[in-house]
C-alpha cells in the first residue's frame, strides 16, 4: 500500500458516511437560498452576480473552516485511538504514507463539498440573473479551495500531533477560535488588542501598517483579500484599514500576498504535524 492507496481507502470510507451527504446537501441548499434571495438595488446583472459571490465569500469565510475541521479532525487521532493506525502501519506503509494519504483523502472530500456548494450557487445565480461571469466563479472556487485546504492541513496536523480524539476536538475548536473568530468578533478583535498594547501599554505612536500586518496573518483576512483577486477592480473591497483615504497600502499588504499567507499556513502546520507524528509513541 502507498499513500495513494491509503487515500483511496480513506476516501471510500468517508463517502459512505450518511451524515457527510446530509451536511453536503444542507450546505448546497444554503448556498442555493443565498443565491436566490440575494439582490442589489438597480445594478446590472453581472454586477449583481459579482456582489453575490463576494457575499458568498463572506459566508464561506466562516463556514468552510468548520467544514474542513469537522471533516479532518478525526483523520489520524480517530484511527490512533481505535487501534486502526497500528493495523495500517503493520502493512508496508510508512508514517509518511499514512499522513499524506489522510491529507489527500480529506482534501478530496472537502473539494467535493466546495464544488457542490459553488455549483448549486452558480446554477441558482445564473437562473436568477441570466449571466455567468466564469472567471469570478472559477476564481472564487480556487480561492475557496486554497482557504479550505489550509484548514484541512491544520486539522490533519493537529490530529496527527495528539493521541486522543477529545484532544483533537479541543485543538480543532481552538484553531477555529484563534484563526477565525478572534479576527471578526467585535471587542476582542486582534487588531484592537495589538493597537491597545502598542499604543496604550507601550505608548508608541499609532502604526496602522503594523496592525494590518498582524491582521493579515489570519487565513480569514487572507481569504477576504484573495477574493479581491477574482473580482473586477471596481468591485474590490477594502479589507484592511488605511491611515487616510489617500494612503495606499504597502506592497506587503497587497492582495497578492494572501497567496503567500495561504502557502505558509498550508505548509508549516503540515510539517510540524508530520514531525510530531513521526516522533509519536504509538
Amino acid at each position: 500500500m502507498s499513500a495513494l492507496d491509503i487515500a483511496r481507502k480513506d476516501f471510500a470510507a468517508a463517502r459512505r458516511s450518511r451524515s457527510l451527504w446530509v451536511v453536503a446537501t444542507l450546505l448546497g441548499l444554503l448556498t442555493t437560498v443565498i443565491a436566490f434571495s440575494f439582490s442589489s438595488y438597480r445594478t446590472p446583472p453581472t454586477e449583481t452576480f459579482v456582489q453575490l459571490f463576494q457575499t458568498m465569500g463572506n459566508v464561506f469565510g466562516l463556514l468552510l473552516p468548520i467544514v474542513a475541521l469537522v471533516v479532518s479532525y478525526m483523520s489520524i487521532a480517530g484511527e490512533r485511538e481505535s487501534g486502526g493506525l497500528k493495523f495500517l502501519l503493520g502493512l508496508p506503509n510508512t508514517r509518511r504514507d499514512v499522513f499524506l494519504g489522510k491529507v489527500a483523502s480529506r482534501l478530496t472530500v472537502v473539494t467535493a463539498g466546495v464544488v457542490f456548494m459553488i455549483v448549486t450557487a452558480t446554477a441558482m445565480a445564473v437562473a436568477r440573473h441570466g449571466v455567468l461571469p466564469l472567471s469570478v466563479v472559477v476564481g472564487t472556487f480556487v480561492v475557496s479551495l486554497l482557504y479550505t485546504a489550509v484548514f484541512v492541513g491544520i486539522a490533519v496536523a493537529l490530529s496527527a500531533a495528539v493521541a486522543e480524539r477529545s484532544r483533537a476536538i479541543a485543538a480543532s475548536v481552538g484553531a477555529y477560535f484563534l484563526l477565525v473568530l478572534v479576527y471578526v468578533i467585535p471587542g476582542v478583535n486582534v487588531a484592537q488588542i495589538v493597537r491597545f498594547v502598542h499604543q496604550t501599554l507601550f505608548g508608541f505612536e499609532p502604526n496602522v501598517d503594523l496592525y494590518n500586518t498582524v491582521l493579515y496573518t489570519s487565513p480569514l483576512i487572507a481569504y477576504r483579500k484573495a477574493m479581491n483577486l477574482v473580482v473586477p477592480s471596481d468591485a474590490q473591497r477594502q479589507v484592511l484599514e488605511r491611515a487616510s483615504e489617500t494612503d495606499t497600502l504597502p506592497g506587503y499588504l497587497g492582495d497578492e500576498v494572501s497567496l503567500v499567507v495561504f502557502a505558509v499556513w498550508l505548509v508549516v502546520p503540515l510539517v510540524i504535524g508530520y514531525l510530531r507524528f513521526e516522533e509519536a509513541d504509538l
Partner: protein
Amino acid sequence: MARDIADTASTVLLVVGVAALLAPALFPVQQVLYHQVGAGTAANGSQLEAEGYTVVAYENLSERGQAIYVDALDSAEREYTVPAGMGAPEFPYDAGSEPGEIVIERPDDAELPPPAEPVDRLGNERERLAERSASQNATGSESPSERARTLEQRREVIATYDLVTVRQESPPLTHPANLLRLGAVALGTVALGVGGYLRSRP
C-alpha cells in the same frame, strides 16, 4: 435485488439532479419592463420640457405605448409589467442605473382611465371648499369661487400630464418564474445528495 433497485434509484436521482440544476441555468428568468404611472404633476408641458423631461402626446405614442399606458392606468397599483422585448419603442428603458422617465400628455377628450390620485384629492378638496362656503361666509383675499377656479385649473394641468417611470429589472422573488427555478435547483441539490449517498453506500 435490493442492490439493483438502489443502483437504479441512485442513477435516476443523479440524472434528475444534474438536469434539475442545469435546466434553470439554461433557461434563466427573463427580466421584465416596469411601467409606473406617477401621481401627476402641476407643471405644464413647457415647464416639464425645460426640466429635461420628454413630453409625448398620448396620440403620438405607438399602439404598444398607448396599450401599456392604459394598462398601467387600469391597474390598482398604477404599475404594469411586460416581458423584456415587449415594451414600447418610445419608453427609455435603458436609462442606466436610474429609472427612465417620460411625461405623457393626455388629450382632453380621450376615453382613458382616470388620472392618478392627487387629481381626486384636488376634487375632494374642491367639494369640501364648496361645502364650507355654503355653510359659512369665508373671509380672505381670495373668494371661494376664485379658489375653486384655481383648484380646477390645477386639476386640469395635473390631469393632463402623467409622469411614467420605466425600468428593466428582474421580477420579484415571489414571481412564479423565480419560485419555479428555486424549486428546480433545490430539487436538484437534494436529488444529487440522496443519489450520491445511495451510489456510495456499501
